[in-house]
């Protein structure tokens, strides 16, 4: 763990009105590492990622990418930082009005002078990596949920990112397709050596893809360790969550 972390989050806070969502989050992501952030629905896992990627502006704290702070960057500078990122959204967020190849090659259409033929070729290459060759001209509405996610993944890796964010990559898929996505995430990490942050509440997926698991609860990271450390954690909140129990300290505090 020498050198600089890809991402260093310190004391990050974010509120919406009276609702405090993040309350002093600390998180590091080292090169080539896969960190999984777990936590219940609505604890602010997505908010955390959206702050790092610059979609939301945090109220306090710092975020450093490769040692440089991104708070206070102007939009142009922030766009340059974003070129290091790829993101897979929960429901893929494919552009409905564009064909698959235009979705996957979106960055190249917008930001390069490559010809249509070259972009189609690049898109086909990325689609092959996610196991979907030959669908360049389909529209997103013609794809199944699992295929949409994989196209979303192809779009995320198209720009050859250094860091990929996965927002609930397995949610809404059957167990077999979910595991196929897990395998894909692992093989992408091995082939492309990218670091990644995944947010999920699917523990099967978390154990499989994580080098490190962090649990977000009440706006703070309450546990951070290897999958084995998390499994054997004596924190009762962690234990309730990873075993999916309806009774325990989390539900007691919610008054349910």
């Amino acid at each position, binding site marked *: 763990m020498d050198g600089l972390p890809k991402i260093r989050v310190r004391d990050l806070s974010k509120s919406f009105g009276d609702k405090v969502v993040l309350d002093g989050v600390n998180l590091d992501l080292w090169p080539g590492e896969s960190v999984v952030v777990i936590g219940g629905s609505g604890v602010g896992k997505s908010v955390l990622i*959206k702050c790092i*990627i*610059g*979609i939301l502006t945090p109220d306090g704290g710092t975020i450093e990418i490769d040692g440089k702070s991104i708070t206070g960057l102007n*939009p142009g500078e922030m*766009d*340059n930082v*974003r*070129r290091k*990122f*790829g*993101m897979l*959204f*929960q*429901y893929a*967020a*494919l*552009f*409905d009005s564009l064909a698959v190849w235009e979705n996957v090659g*979106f*960055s190249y259409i*917008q*930001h390069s002078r490559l010809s249509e033929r070259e972009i189609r070729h690049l898109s086909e290459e990325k689609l092959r990596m996610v196991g979907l060759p030959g669908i360049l001209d389909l529209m997103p509405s013609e794809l199944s949920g699992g295929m949409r996610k994989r196209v979303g993944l192809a*779009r995320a890796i198209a*720009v050859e990112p250094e860091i990929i964010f996965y927002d609930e990559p397995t949610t809404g898929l059957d167990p077999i397709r979910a595991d196929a996505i897990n395998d894909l995430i692992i093989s992408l990490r091995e082939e492309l050596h990218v670091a990644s942050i995944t947010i999920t509440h699917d523990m099967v997926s978390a154990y499989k893809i994580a080098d490190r698991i962090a649990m977000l609860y009440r706006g703070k990271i309450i546990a951070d360790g290897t999958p084995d450390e998390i499994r054997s954690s004596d924190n009762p909140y962690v234990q309730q969550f990873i075993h999916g129990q309806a009774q325990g300290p989390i539900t007691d505090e919610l008054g349910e």
Partner: protein
Amino acid sequence: MANERRRSSMNPVQVLEWIGRRSLVYLQESGQGTILFTRVIRSIFKGPFPVRLTTQQMEEIGFRSLPVVLITAIFTGAVLALQTYSGFKRFGAEGLVGTVVALSMTRELGPVLASIMVAGRVGSAMAAELGTMRVTEQIDALITLATDPVHYLVVPRFVASLVMLPFLVIFADIIGIIGGYVVAVTILGASSTSYINRTLQYLEFSDITIGLLKAAVFGMIIALVGCHMGFYTTGGAEGVGKATTRAVVGASILILISNYFLTALLF
């Protein structure tokens, strides 16, 4: 339902609260709208202009709105002739029907009615499209792909609407005047030559150009309100529905209000 029940049992304090809350919403929206407007203007001149997206929108806003606008215009011109004739006949001024139709169409009804029809057709579509993109995270996806959503989504709609509305209104003016002519000459028995003469005699070039200027302003209003409502949509499919309604109502009201002030200022 819940709303109805709450409103029927409101005491005076609650009425004041409701007024206050509504006023805050309007203030907030005019603020957001103004910010969006300045972002759009700055964004137009920044980076490569999105030509292909803009021409697509021009086709949608201009060409595809033509039938609706023309039907509105021809019947408006026709009914104007009918009404003016029966009114003016009372003091023997039925010879001026052509003048009234031409002035009303070019200065007022062409721009306003065409714009309100386009607000219903296109403003709603903009709100629905951008609203759906917002709730399905497509707008967030644009940002992560280092693409400014204002530049990619709003600028093409804004420019296309600004450019196409005046064109639509030229057609509306012409067709409206023809509608009035057909009614006056064939049904009311006016003389064709004197109708045309009276029309041309009193119609000034500035009547037309100022009408077109108004149309350009209305075009900006339609795109801004439609995109704004879509852009700030929250609350899933229901939110998209609400945004669509508010886009049409908001744009129509703003068109009518600004129409008064533009008319007072320009004519």
